[in-house]
């Protein structure tokens, strides 16, 4: 029997071209991938209509191209195994992206005529250009593929540029639309994220970029896909150092618009340095152009291509920006939960932007891989950026340290704006809900009065609905109205408290400055003590005694200030870090009473806490909380006895009972009427009878008013909040004997 062999029918080409590659944008994507696999650094793609409404597609790349032998061996051979055998590209070692030798059949999907022009470098160094034309219509079902010839030509030249150009004609231009164009771009951003890398055993990859042109889908003649990727994230940060060292930062970001910052003459050593960084959070809502950059692509791009490179005269300097390299110390700071920027001027910015929390302004900083870009270094100092011969870093650390400071300045600055953006988003959500309510209810709800308006609306509707209910069921409606009233009242109180607390909080920075200055003053007092000690050695007799006395007095004042500072730092402790613990009550009472020692002396107030047993300890409570309780109740008692004007006595007793630690504060002040005593725990009601503060004003020296506070009426409400949160309670109790007030606190 004769030996038999297969014959390939031309129908196979349409099967591969049209069935495997369903859509035009997928087909074009395959051709671009081929360019990437051919080690091109740039590919230009143009999609245009001809006069008959058919498409003309050209794809030109500057890859390694093909010689005639390559064309015959690979291009003209169906289902070649070359991509399976060589999984990385020859020149740069790129992992191949094409789909196992079917890319060229994508041409069949894109049109019925293809012109292939490719130039490859032969082993002898000469450039061989091959041009072949394919008329796919000739590959009709029933014909043998191997019997159809394609016209073409080949020429060889000494000089030339390698690359491949495909011109595809006769496709349906109507198949192209904006959506398919955007899908193509979205698929391609993964490729353009390659901004250059060095792979062991290969030439340095210089990166890959795609320029897309289409009169109907692209604004510019050639849309730069890399630029579009850079613009697609949350924001783009540009930094430039001018001749005189002035650092100019500009940020274009979602919901923020364009912002600029100038840091004058900050980095003269870096004059000429420029930087562009795309800020790419992997959160879809935060992307400016999700049509270009999908979340899936972002997750593919960031681990390999994230990070900020350093380049010098266009060449990338390693290892800066490699995966895992944290030369900007972004991940280090994130790991340490570093909330505060080290740049003073930026702290000021954080304070000015509404909603941004000063001291925590960097907590929303992204990981280093989410900052994608590069810095082009320049310096007027010749050796500052002297590259090592291996191009693995610079000789000397100073240049990189300076560069880090400059770039981190920009990144910290943009992070503060991102934090601000996140606050705006939250605000936006609130606003959207308000508008939705307005539209649904057909009522006007002022932003400041949304809760009131909504609650009033609910009340009104419930009233109407209730009127239609049978008599026996009206109770539900009445209960709903009462519930709404409770919401309204609670909202009012919360707003009042918030308004006041905002005021109080605004003074906290002042308190910090004050505490800092007092510390400076303590240092001065210590210096004066030392000076007086030196003088004391030089004088004798009365003068020496006088100097010693002065030194002693300064020492006492210093210690008093120290104690007050101790109390200040105790109260302003971070309650999240502190741990509740059992506390020796008498010790804390002693310290709190000490804070009022000057007032006690001046107004002849006697505070007796002898009855508190030394070993009595509270249950678990924060030290700051206990001190806050004691400071507030003692302040009230002192005010009451000064206003009372008679015997000024305060007694503090404490005992352990089964429910906890019972502390009673008695005073001989103006007293509290039992019927109005509960009002004193309501915020902003400091003096329900309206008698204490006028009396206090009459009896207190004007210079001591600040010690007593303003009578905000928050003290007892704060005490109650703290005590209740710890499972205790606070209330006024009946009095007897000389005492006018008895405040009882049940601590845990």
């Amino acid at each position, binding site marked *: 029997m004769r030996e038999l062999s297969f014959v390939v029918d031309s129908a196979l080409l349409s099967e591969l071209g049209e069935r495997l590659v369903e859509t035009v944008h997928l087909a074009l994507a395959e051709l671009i991938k081929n360019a990437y696999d051919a080690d091109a650094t740039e590919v230009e793609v143009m999609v245009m209509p001809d006069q008959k409404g058919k498409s003309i597609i050209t794809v030109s790349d500057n890859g390694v191209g093909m010689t005639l032998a390559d064309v015959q061996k690979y291009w003209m051979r169906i289902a070649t195994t070359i991509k399976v055998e060589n999984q990385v590209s020859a020149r740069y070692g790129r992992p191949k992206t094409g789909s196992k030798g079917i890319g060229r059949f994508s041409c069949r999907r894109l049109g019925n005529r293809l012109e292939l022009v490719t130039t490859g470098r032969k082993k002898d160094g000469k450039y061989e250009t091959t041009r072949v034309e394919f008329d796919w219509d000739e590959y009709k079902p029933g014909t043998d593929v191997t019997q159809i010839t394609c016209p073409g030509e080949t020429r060889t030249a000494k000089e030339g540029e390698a690359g491949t150009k495909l011109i595809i004609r006769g496709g349906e231009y109507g198949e192209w639309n904006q959506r398919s164009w955007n899908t193509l771009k979205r698929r391609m951003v993964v490729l353009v994220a390659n901004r250059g890398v060095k792979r062991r055993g290969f030439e340095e990859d210089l990166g890959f970029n795609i320029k897309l042109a289409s009169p109907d889908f692209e604004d510019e003649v050639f849309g730069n896909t890399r630029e579009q990727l850079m613009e697609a994230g949350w924001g783009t940060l540009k930094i430039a150092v001018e001749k005189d060292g002035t650092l100019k930062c500009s940020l274009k970001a979602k919901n923020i618009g364009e912002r600029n910052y100038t840091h004058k003459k*900050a*980095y003269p*050593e870096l004059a000429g340095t420029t930087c562009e960084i795309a800020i790419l959070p992997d959160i879809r809502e935060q992307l400016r152009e999700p049509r270009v950059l999908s979340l899936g692509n972002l997750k593919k791009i960031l681990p390999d291509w994230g990070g900020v490179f350093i380049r010098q005269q266009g060449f990338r300097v390693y290892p800066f920006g490699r995966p895992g390299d944290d030369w900007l110390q972004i991940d280090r700071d994130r790991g340490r939960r570093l909330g505060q920027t*080290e740049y003073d001027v930026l702290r000021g910015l954080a304070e000015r932007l509404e909603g941004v929390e000063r001291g925590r302004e960097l907590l929303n900083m992204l990981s280093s891989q989410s900052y994608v870009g590069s810095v082009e270094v320049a310096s007027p100092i010749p050796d500052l950026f002297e590259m090592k011969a291996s191009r693995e870093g610079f000789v000397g650390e*100073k240049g990189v*340290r*300076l560069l880090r*400071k400059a770039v981190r300045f920009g990144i910290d600055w943009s992070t503060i704006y991102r934090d601000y953006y996140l606050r705006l988003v939250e605000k936006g959500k609130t606003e959207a809900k308000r508008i939705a309510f307005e539209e649904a209810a057909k009522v006007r709800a002022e932003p400041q009065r949304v809760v009131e308006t909504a609650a009033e609306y609910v009340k009104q509707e419930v009233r109407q609905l209730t009127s239609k209910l049978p008599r026996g069921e009206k109770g539900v409606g009445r209960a709903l109205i009462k519930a709404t009233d409770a919401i309204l009242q609670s909202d009012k109180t919360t707003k009042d408290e918030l308004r006041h607390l905002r005021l109080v909080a605004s003074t906290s920075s002042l308190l910090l400055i004050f505490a*800092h200055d007092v*510390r*400076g003053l*303590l*240092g001065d*007092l*210590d*210096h004066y*003590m*030392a*000076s007086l*000690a*030196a003088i004391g050695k030089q004088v004798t007799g009365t003068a020496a005694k006088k100097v010693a006395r002065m030194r002693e007095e300064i020492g006492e004042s*210093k210690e008093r200030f*120290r104690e007050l*500072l*101790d109390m200040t*730092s*105790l109260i302003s402790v971070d309650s999240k870090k502190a741990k509740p*613990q*059992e*506390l*020796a009550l*008498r*010790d804390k009472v002693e*310290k709190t009473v000490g804070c009022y020692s000057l007032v006690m002396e001046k107004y002849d107030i006697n505070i007796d806490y002898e009855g508190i047993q*030394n*070993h*009595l*300890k509270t249950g678990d409570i924060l*030290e700051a909380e206990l001190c806050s309780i004691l400071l507030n109740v003692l302040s009230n008692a002192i005010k009451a006895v000064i206003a009372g004007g008679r015997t000024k006595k305060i007694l503090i007793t404490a005992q352990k009972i089964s429910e906890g630690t019972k502390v009673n504060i008695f005073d001989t002040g103006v007293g509290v009427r039992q019927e109005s005593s509960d009002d004193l725990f309501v915020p902003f009601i400091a003096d329900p009878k309206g008698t204490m503060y006028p009396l206090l004003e009459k009896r207190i020296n004007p210079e001591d008013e600040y010690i007593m506070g303003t009578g905000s009426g928050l003290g007892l409400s704060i005490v109650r909040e703290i005590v209740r949160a710890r499972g205790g309670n606070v209330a006024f109790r009946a009095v007897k004997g000389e005492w006018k007030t008895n405040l009882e606190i049940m601590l845990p």
Partner: protein
Amino acid sequence: MEDKPRDNVAMKSKVQILWIDDYPQRSKRATDLQDASGMNVEFISVNNKDLEEEIARIRSDYEPEMVIIDHILDKTSPDSWTRLGSTLAGLLRETWEECPVFGITAAKNVGQIDIQRYTYDELIEGDRFSEYERYIPNVIDGFKKCGKVKDIEGWIALLKCQEEEIERIKGCMPHDAKTDFEKKGFANRVYRWFRRRFYRMPGFLYDIDWVATFVGVKKEAVEKYLKYFETAKYDGVFNDPHHRRWWKARLYEVIYSKCKDENASHRASQDVANEVLRVKKEDRSKCYVCKEKWPETVAYVDESKTSGVKQMHLRCTVAHPLYRYEPMFEEIRVMEG
């Protein structure tokens, strides 16, 4: 004292203490130190200066006898590569291995300035600096003496302890404080152990609270009885005149040697001391908890950071959970609630 670079050759031979600070105003503290110690102190202001350049210049110069550095150097040039004195201290230590380096800070509660403070031999709160003025010359002297030590005996001799204490002290010393005498940095290693453990923890040495408790006298009254314990006062190497200490063994010796009761050794130290010192009734110590006489320990009232210490009976206290018990030192205890 002027704020100028160290380029004066005549000055060079005299400078003993170098003070590096970014607050020029602090130069007056350096003057205080110079006046009180009688040593030559040079103040180097790094205000608005590049630290890297300054330190390179300082390191290339001769070695002083001590360096004092401001812990936070936030007023140096914005390009300075660090803002922490502790980083600087580490750098200087590379060059000057035997030189004591103290930090100074405006912050309070230096115990909370975590790991950075361990770069210094000591970190001082700025408003407590006058307490160190008389101590610093002793530190410098102590470092010099430690530098000359050839063996453990030579080192122990610097403490001027009782002979019978020598073996016990050797027993509680860490390995690196009793070996490698010739190796650079011995003085620093030994100073840190001495200052942070031996001098600070009650055991061999007692502070004023412990002395008062040991002899059964209230803390407020103990000053008038201290004259009896002059021989017990610590006057060895690194003696700190402001934070005085007494040898516990010598306190024993003083009170028991004065007692004529043959069975005195069976009696509590408070009992014997009250008798031989003729302590007035109102001066006698009482337990903070039970009010009964002669508490034996000094304990914290609670575990909070601001907790004070009081005289208490052992039975009225429990072991402080935040402190580890170390043999040969007193157990740190806290009041039982």
